[in-house]
């Protein structure tokens, strides 16, 4: 499988073949998930109807973290094995991850308004998510600020690796800072167990979002490959 994809053109063909199925899966799962969210799941006895935000907020948060770690893994591969596919994937994932982080932040703060009474709380999780957004922005800007794409890739890879090392430290210190300034009272979401009637829509929505992200990633990878091919042709024409 991986050996088959070890060729950009074959990769493009593969993604072309698979992307309609991804779209179908996404539409199917998303509609089913929305149906479950609004028709089949009960309101929470504590938060009432606002709990329905969770079904979209939590998958976004998961994927925002997951994509950052995938970018870091790709950066590792690109620095060690110098494989261009890793660079291309991390370039394709960064905007997607950043927009999911933004979605997480916005839905989180909308969720916060009815439950906490304010749009924003300097809660440990929200703050770390905000920091994650800045890390994403830094990577995107840095990788695009070089005329030489390879160089931008390398620098962004180094930055994201430093970021993934620092992320636990940041998370930990924000937690610490949070407990220092406000005694823990707001972490009322952390319910130990979740009812199956709420878990199923959450899982369905997560998979829907996964297929959407895969679809977008394939499109972005394809455009990145095309961009590089165009650059090669242009640079040989110029010289």
């Amino acid at each position, binding site marked *: 499988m991986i050996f088959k994809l070890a060729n950009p053109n074959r990769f493009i063909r593969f993604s072309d073949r698979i992307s309609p199925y991804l779209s179908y899966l996404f539409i199917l799962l998303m509609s089913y998930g929305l149906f479950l969210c609004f028709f089949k799941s009960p*309101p929470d006895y504590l938060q009432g109807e606002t709990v329905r935000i969770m079904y979209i907020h939590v998958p976004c948060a998961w994927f925002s973290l997951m994509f950052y770690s995938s970018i870091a893994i790709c950066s590792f591969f690109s620095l060690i094995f110098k494989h261009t596919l890793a660079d291309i994937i991390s370039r394709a994932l960064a905007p997607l991850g950043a927009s999911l982080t933004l979605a997480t932040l916005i839905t989180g703060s909308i969720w916060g308004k009815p439950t906490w009474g304010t749009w924003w709380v300097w809660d440990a999780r929200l703050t770390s998510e905000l920091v994650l957004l800045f890390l994403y922005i830094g990577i995107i800007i840095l990788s695009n600020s070089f005329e030489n794409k390879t160089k931008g890739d390398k620098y962004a890879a180094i930055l994201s690796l430093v970021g993934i090392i620092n992320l636990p430290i940041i998370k930990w210190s924000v937690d610490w800072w949070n407990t220092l300034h406000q005694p823990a009272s707001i972490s009322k979401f952390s319910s130990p167990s979740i009812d199956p009637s709420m878990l199923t829509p959450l899982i369905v929505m997560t998979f829907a979002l996964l297929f959407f992200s895969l679809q977008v990633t394939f499109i972005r990878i394809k455009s990145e490959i095309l961009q590089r091919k165009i650059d090669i042709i242009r640079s040989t024409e110029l010289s």
Partner: protein
Amino acid sequence: MEYFLKFLESKEHLPYVATSYIIVFFILVIIFVHSILKLKKLENDFDELNKQ
């Protein structure tokens, strides 16, 4: 169904839930459309370069 009707009746919470879903879908649509448009533009460029 009754859950949905209950949800629609909850005047307090409906706008929050609705806006959050709308915003997320808006962001997803934007990133999707942006990717598609970029791809289309690059495909056009690539075809033109290959024709020359």
